[in-house]
């Protein structure tokens, strides 16, 4: 499974990594720490067409629900069924066993427009600085 360095990131903290013509999507390590213990995941079903930025699922902790957004437009081709029995995989291995769904992107351009890992880390820093004020 993809290391953060080989992923692209959305501002809403999803990572996406190309994989045999499709791309895997999950939540960043930063996001899983913010969410804390994940107890339920409602991932988009295979066959569903989503637009970039569309709310397409929900990740729930004991205390709160977090929307999952499609980082690119395309068709969902797989959902991680292991999360049904062990949603905590998102906490334990956010970039690995905790992947959430796979998507066939409509275009490569949307993917290129997302942040690479160093930019995502910068984004987190500036967001944290913003919160502190």
């Amino acid at each position: 499974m993809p290391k953060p360095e080989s992923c692209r990131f959305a501002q809403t903290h999803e990572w996406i990594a190309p994989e045999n013509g499709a791309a895997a999507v999950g939540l960043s390590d930063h996001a899983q720490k913010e969410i804390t213990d994940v107890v339920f995941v409602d991932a988009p079903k295979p066959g569903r067409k989503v637009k970039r930025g569309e709310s397409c699922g929900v990740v729930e902790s004991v205390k709160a629900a977090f929307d999952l957004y499609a980082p690119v437009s395309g068709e969902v081709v797989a959902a991680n069924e292991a999360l049904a029995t062990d949603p905590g995989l998102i906490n334990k291995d956010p970039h690995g066993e905790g992947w959430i769904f796979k998507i066939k992107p409509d275009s490569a351009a949307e993917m290129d427009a997302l942040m690479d890992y160093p930019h995502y880390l910068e984004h987190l820093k500036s967001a944290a600085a913003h919160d502190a004020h």
Partner: protein
Amino acid sequence: MPPAVSLLKRTALYSRHRSLGARLVDFHGWELPLQYEGILKEHEAVRTRAGIFDVSHMGQFEISGPGALGFLQKTNTNDVAKLSPGQALYSHLPNEKGGVVDDVIVSCLAPGRYFMVVNAATREKDLAWLSAKAAGLDARLNDRSDFYSMIALQGPAAAEIAEGDYPQAAALPRFGALETEVLGAPSLITRTGYTGEDGFEFIAPHDVAEKLWDRFLSRGAAPCGLGARDTLRLEAGLLLYGQDIDDEHTSVEAGYGWVVKPGKGDFLGRAVLERQLREGVSRRLRGVKLLEGGVPRPGCEVFLGDRAIGTFTSATYSPSLRAGLGTAYLVPPDLPAGTRVSVAVHGRRIPAEIAPTPFYRRQGAKNAKA
């Protein structure tokens, strides 16, 4: 930008929470830990071993004088007269309509001397309410909330942890209350809690709070926050004031008819409550458990077929049952347990059923109702 002035109140254990890496939240004006390591781990610690909670935000009143008992009988649904020194009970403070002003624990320290623990958010309201009701009765009401810290030690290993330093506490029966010294300071220990497990609440002056906290930690208790406190109490069928009960809902409607003792003599709201006990209620707080994945929240609606029959007052994911569950005032009030219903969560209808409360009962627990 100038630094924001924090208006939140902090407990004597604030620096402990910081150094333990707690995630702090605003809880009714208090800056308190939501969690340390994580809600699931803390929940499990209390169900299987022991946890400690800083509940210093809660209020403490001393009530004394020749008229103290009469005053408490008038302002409580439960029968305070049956308390001997060293005993405590859970009770509701009713208003004239039978609604609940607060839910409290009353301890009898000595004849004519009582101690009441009240909720943080209702402390001022309770004080005003009780002061007004004490008029003409020979009873003194003293708000001691600013003097005491409060630490709850909860879980199957709580007695073992308490026993080392406080063998008399470990010998207390359930709902026993003991005035004693804690680290040299005059304190109250009660065998009570808000988790559905065995446990104690230590009410001690602020200057010994850190030392007491550290001692429990060193004996293996896990620090636990408000997050786990909420999942534990909801599983155990315990009410959260302001969510599950309030001035507009009565003890009987909340399914707590057992704290209403019409036989003890007159008290506020007695006529309404006695009638509800006799004739039944049109709505009742019921347990609802989801049969498929999903996490319900307060405000989610419950449906019987296509008809909305109530709204969750409390709801969460239950770590012990590994399912979403909650409580809602339902109309009709008396659907049998097992009745199929559904719950609207994020626009989905999730199959659910009416479930008996408490959802969770500890092994070997006797019925604690009295």
